[in-house]
């Protein structure tokens, strides 16, 4: 496997007449946690959506995932190749039970270890086990985010995309969640690409980072370096 699990080159995207991305390039190394920082409207969500070829946005550019060009692969095919995406707003199935959500997470898998994996995520998030027969829509925001992450991990992804996982959650829950991300990254070796407004927390678990400004990459480098960068501190860390 190449060193970079994900390579994005010259990504342009637009919604109708509005250009959102103007030539984004980024690389994610296998095994690392990478974050994309940026203000509202900078194009963070669009970047993630373009990477896994979600509808509505039309994009051009090359995207290489685990050495293969996936620029023209449909979302289902990309998921089958080992990418999982937790979208903003979580992307759970509100009418289905917690257990069914996890079963659907393993939809592309054909092995018979699905139940073992469900048990594993139930151990990681015991509250989900308590709520396994409850409709996902009735879970609290934090529980839904845990479910969304477990749902994504059920496909045993090589790369996990997380779109603003902290959105709408209480600070203490956010800290727990990021600690869990770090643990999953270390234990499972799952590479993560996280889009986040909570820059401090995101940089604390990441190895590398990008700053997106009005549709293009303004800054990039190791997470520690960006954390010390005066421009980043002023704009995103509230220093």
């Amino acid at each position, binding site marked *: 496997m190449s060193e970079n699990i994900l390579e994005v080159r010259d990504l342009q995207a637009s919604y109708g007449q509005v250009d959102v991305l103007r030539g984004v390039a980024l690389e994610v190394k296998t095994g690392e946690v990478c974050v994309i920082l940026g203000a509202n409207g900078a194009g963070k969500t669009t970047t993630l959506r373009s990477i*896994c070829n979600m509808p509505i946005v039309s994009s051009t550019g090359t995207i290489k995932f685990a050495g293969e060009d996936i620029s023209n692969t449909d979302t*289902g095919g990309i998921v089958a190749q080992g990418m999982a995406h937790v*979208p903003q707003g979580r*992307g759970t*199935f509100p009418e289905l039970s917690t257990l*069914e959500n996890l079963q659907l997470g393993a*939809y*592309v898998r054909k092995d018979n270890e699905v139940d073992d994996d469900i048990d594993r995520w139930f151990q990681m998030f015991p509250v989900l086990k308590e709520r396994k027969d409850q409709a996902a829509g009735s879970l609290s925001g934090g529980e*839904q985010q845990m479910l969304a992450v477990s749902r994504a991990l059920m*496909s045993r992804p090589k790369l996990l995309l997380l779109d603003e996982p902290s959105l709408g959650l209480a600070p203490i829950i956010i800290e727990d969640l990021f600690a869990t991300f770090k643990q999953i990254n270390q234990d499972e070796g799952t590479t993560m690409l996280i889009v986040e407004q909570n820059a401090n927390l995101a940089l604390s678990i990441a190895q590398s980072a990008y700053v997106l400004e009005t549709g293009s990459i303004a800054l990039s480098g190791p997470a520690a370096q960006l954390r010390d960068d005066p421009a980043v501190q002023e704009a995103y860390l509230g220093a």
Partner: protein
Amino acid sequence: MTLFLQRIIDGLQNGAIYSVVAIPMVLIFKATTLINFAQGELAMIGAFFAFVFAVQAFSMNIILATILAMVIAALLGMGIERTMLRSFDPTDHLPVVLITLGVFYIVNAFAGDIWNYQAQANVPNLLYDLPLIGDWMQGRSSFFTSETNKLGLRIQHDSVGLVGALLIMLSALHVILNRTKMGLAFRGVSSNTEASRLVGIRVGRILSFGWGLACAFGALGAILVAPRITLQPNMMLTVLVYALAAAAFGGLDSVGGAALGGFVVGLLNSVILGYISDVDRLSSLTAAPLLFPVVLLLVVLWFKPTGLFGTKSVERV
């Protein structure tokens, strides 16, 4: 009292017919959140297929003819979804609903051209040929008979059979939707299309599956009710309106709700119209029997748009 009981029985008998048509409609609504106005006509053409196989052309066993008609109806439904609907943005309901209206007229005219707008004679009754209960259905026990039995009531044997068939249909759908991977994917698409794509579900294929399933069960329903309401191209015209009211009453996305809704609509219709027709000055109202389901539809949509068992799209955030 006997009259009252008879009206309840008549209502339930008709209700089973409405349920049988409302259930496939709900399946399509679950998959696509749109009303398929062609549902009744697609079911009607399915009943004609079975009629052709069993009577007009091949003298097939009616059970075999039914299965074959269900398969063809399923393929037809999948073909319509694939060729006419797939290319449209599914969230833009207007063109899609207009297309289903177009399909309604095309299928109706097509059937009218081939089979004329007259009731067919010798329509086979699927229930009579079923193993075990078929003999009993035909044997016309002294209690379930088209004549008045010793309680002074008319309870037609094939209505009892229809209710039984309805329960079997519901169980089959329950198993398909809740115990198979395809069914889980179907409910996933129904719940959140975007998330479905993100777990790798090919949404188009699932919509196809939904249309196929709905049309197969629609055909089965039409084959079951054809001996009661006559087999002819317009057989579903009024039934469709009642079924729509039934589906709305049950909540549009609840299969069980639609089944129950059918019975409720049948009951209310029979009892209320029955008594209105007893009042001389109001009896002309019964000349417009379709008034009732339309009014019920309006009342449900006005006061409880999600129906009895429908999903409210309210979530905790």
